[in-house]
């Protein structure tokens, strides 16, 4: 079973497919996302890419719970996340996110890199990672473009979770479904409408918006990525992550029993 499903076409669709783990982003998942994005990039004639997830959540963020060599793995995960965010932003199609359930930290970083975001009212969105001693700085370049600077500060620094309605109010989401069951239909209809737009006009408009916003420059992406990596290697992060890891392992052992 693959961790990512890909449909190609005028609307390409990438569906995260690790429902039991709320589509948390592992290195294996990133490998498949990379491959899927590569195929979408090579399909020249498309209007949009829809990003969605199977199971209870869109994406619950980087998988920092499993495996060994924790700090090296977190670095690799952060590098992959930053790379995917840049590729989504520069993809010559309109990238639409269909966000249900949790979109946390790395998951929130992905949606902030999309051009349009559809949410269900009960979605849970935010960056609850300072509590782990980690900095979500890697997501700043796209988040500060997505919502006003004041909202971005409040969301990131507090680590609070907001629901879909609040995300819509502050501009992190652009379409609010009436209910969770109506979300897939809403996202699909947006992609269908995009297919009727001038393809060259869409590409030129997205490229121009990227130029205006400085999204073509790697400098901010690089610097914030390095900052997140650095913060994950501090003693503070090690201590806080140890505690989180122990609690997580304990929780999962209990479940297994």
């Amino acid at each position: 079973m693959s961790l990512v499903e890909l449909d190609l076409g005028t609307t390409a669709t990438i569906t995260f497919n690790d429902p039991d783990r709320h589509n948390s982003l592992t290195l294996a998942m990133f490998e498949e996302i990379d491959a899927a994005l590569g195929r979408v990039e090579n399909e020249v004639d498309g209007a949009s890419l829809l990003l969605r997830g199977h199971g209870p959540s869109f994406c619950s963020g980087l998988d920092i719970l499993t495996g060994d060599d924790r700090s090296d793995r977190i670095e690799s995960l952060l590098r992959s996340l930053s790379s995917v965010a840049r590729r989504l932003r520069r993809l010559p199609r309109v990238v639409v996110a269909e966000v249900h359930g949790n979109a946390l930290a790395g998951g929130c970083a992905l949606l902030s890199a999309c051009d349009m975001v559809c949410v269900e009212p009960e979605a849970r969105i935010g960056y609850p990672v300072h509590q782990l001693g980690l900095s979500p700085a890697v997501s700043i370049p796209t988040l500060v473009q997505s919502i006003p600077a004041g909202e971005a500060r409040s969301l990131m620094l507090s680590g609070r979770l907001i629901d879909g309605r609040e995300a819509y109010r502050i501009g992190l989401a652009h379409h609010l479904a009436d209910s969770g069951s109506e979300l897939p239909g809403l996202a699909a209809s947006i992609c269908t409408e995009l297919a009727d737009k001038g393809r060259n006009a869409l590409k030129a408009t997205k490229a121009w918006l990227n130029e205006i916003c400085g999204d073509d420059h790697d400098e901010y992406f690089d610097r914030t990525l390095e900052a997140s990596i650095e913060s994950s290697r501090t003693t503070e992060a090690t201590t806080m992550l140890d505690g989180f890891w122990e609690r997580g392992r304990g929780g999962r052992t209990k479940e297994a029993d």
Partner: protein
Amino acid sequence: MKNDTRNEDQGRVSSELKGGCLWITLHRPAKHNALSITLIDQLHDAIREAADMPSLRSLVLAGEGRSFCAGMDLAAAGDDPEAMAGMLRSLAEVMIKIRALPVPVIARVQGAAIGGGCGLLTVSDFVISHPEAKLGYPEVDHGICPAVVAPCLANSIGAGRARALLLAGGLINGRRGLEIGMVNTLVEAEDLDEAVDALVSRLETGGQQALRVTKHWLNTIEDPDLDAMFLKGADLSARILAGAEAQERLARRRG
């Protein structure tokens, strides 16, 4: 102070001083005030005159009839890409001039404000409209790139919302315009004049030089390179407009 009618079909622009407020009005109601070459030229003249009025306190942009402005009248340029490029550049220049006006600019928006017409809203300091107004940038529907308005729109409503709006094409109503910050004041259509007058009166209570200083610095801090971006956007827009995709879609529209 009224300009004379030049050519009814192509419309005209009037300037009328009411106290310290200059009303600049588009008159081409049969075409929902679609911007012809004549209208854009006269708008240039009217804005230039306004910029030289030392005792001016505020300026209102308005349109006669059912709509504020339905956008660029690309039919005027026929199928001549160079003429279209010229119109786009001229519109970009008039937007630069409006934004640079030393006094607060209020857009009084009824009915449709579409494409280039909606672009006039982005360079105004205040937008007063009503819930049923039809606003937005359907450029990508026609294979066109809304490059002229993009930089200013990104500043005024935020880059994320500008991105989602411009890539989606289509239109939004005044209510949604208020939610995303494209409209500052929303009143019932019949109350538009009252709302405009109330704001004009309020602005007249402020110190004249203080308002001019504040506006100058808002323009400067917001984006000192914006003028160059308008012109670059006009060139990009003209390039996309001259392409096969846009020309095919425009020809289909002409029938």
